[in-house]
């Protein structure tokens, strides 16, 4: 165990000089996909709840498909499936994008978490207290002011407890990246396993790393909840 940590610790935690460490790759995947997913989910959740039927229906279909199929299959479609199409192979820009495992993993994770986040936000929007909307209208706010100043901030605050769960799930989902040759924590663990045949220790270290990341995230979100949801106490 100690020898493994001595030899491979740098690969897990910090850089070994010329490559990113597993931890930093996992964090990068988590942050980029969560940010992209959330940014796309906010307008789409509004469309899903307040848009007319022809706008809301495609969003509903999107969340149904992406929540109903495994992320692994979505990644396979994006990473191996699209690369097998001649349309993608012959277009230089598309091929540049889909050739790289990292791009594919971030795209798959972002699309996946976006679908779940839309449902979380839409659920929260539906339970917006009537009083908040009535107060805004009583103050003479226009429709866009109502959305920007009242509905969206209120939605983001009240979605926090559910969204923190979703971020933990994204962290867990990033482990799939190693199937697309992205060197995240699990890929390093698989390499260590291949080099030392110490399966339990290799994957055990990865499990401990993911666990401490999850605990840190829970702590951060608890602090954020205490600040942003202070009015509920």
């Amino acid at each position, binding site marked *: 165990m100690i020898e493994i940590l001595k030899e491979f610790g740098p690969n897990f935690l910090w850089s070994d000089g010329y490559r990113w460490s597993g931890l930093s790759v996992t964090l990068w995947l988590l942050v980029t996909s969560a940010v992209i997913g959330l940014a796309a989910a906010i307008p789409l959740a509004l469309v899903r709840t307040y848009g007319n039927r022809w706008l809301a229906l495609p969003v509903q279909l999107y969340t*149904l*498909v992406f*929540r*109903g*199929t*495994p*992320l*692994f*299959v*979505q990644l*396979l*479609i994006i990473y*191996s*499936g*699209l*690369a*097998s*199409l001649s349309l993608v192979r012959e277009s230089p820009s598309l091929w540049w994008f889909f050739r790289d495992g990292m791009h594919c993993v971030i795209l798959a994770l972002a699309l996946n978490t976006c679908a779940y986040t839309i449902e979380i936000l839409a659920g929260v929007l539906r339970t917006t207290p009537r009083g908040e909307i009535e107060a805004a209208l009583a103050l003479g706010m226009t429709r866009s002011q109502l959305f920007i100043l009242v509905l969206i901030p209120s939605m983001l605050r009240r979605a926090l407890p559910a969204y923190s769960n979703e971020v933990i799930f994204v*962290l*867990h*989902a*990033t*482990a*799939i990246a190693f*199937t697309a040759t992205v060197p995240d924590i*699990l890929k390093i*663990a*698989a390499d260590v*396993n291949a080099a030392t045949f110490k*399966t*339990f220790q290799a*994957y*055990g270290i*990865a*499990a401990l790393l*993911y*666990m401490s990341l*999850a*605990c840190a995230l829970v702590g951060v979100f608890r602090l954020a909840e205490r600040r942003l949801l202070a009015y509920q106490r």
Partner: protein
Amino acid sequence: MFLEGYGYLVFQGAWLTVQVATWAACVAIVLGLLGALAKLSPVAPLRLVATVYTTLVRSVPDLVLMLLIYYSAQIGLNQVAEAFGRESWQLNPYGTAIGTLGFIYGAYCAETFRGAFQAIPFGQLEAARAYGMSHWQVLRRIRLPQMMRFALPGIGNIWQVLLKSAGLISLLGLNDMVQVAKQAGNATSRQMFFYLVIATIFLAFAILSSLALKHLERRYSIEPRRSVS
């Protein structure tokens, strides 16, 4: 030719995925019940073991745990057998995959069941005790059936996640639907087509199970009609 002649293999793979997911769900429900009862038991060591189990398992990605348990189980077994001077035996890969998935989702089930047990109105338990029911009778006649009603939505969600996780067993080298699609795609160089086919099958499973769960929930949420006041 249906699916370029791979129709039957894809069907077999899909059947295998469903079987593994179903058996894993059974293991998870049993483990979840035991875990929830242990978490609520008055015996401190039991509570500790159950808390460690649910916390550890739920904070680690399922894929990492699957690789960890699946590959370590055989090695551990060999070491135990060696310590007793016996010949070790080969674990059945399907059984191990089912056990692994069940072990992981048992932790999630335990949390759901614990919440459901705690949602039972205390008066009902007191009433049962007042009728002179034994501890076991209260559990079987009141707590389990009442708990099931509260647990059903949560268990349904866990089943949906478990079903999707079952798609990962191809990474353990099992010949499930995803593995078949990979092979068929590589052989015919129509990867996109075969991946879309299995995605559709997964989606169909998800929709079917959500319909079935809705039906079950309706059935279990029958309440005695309240008098009109």
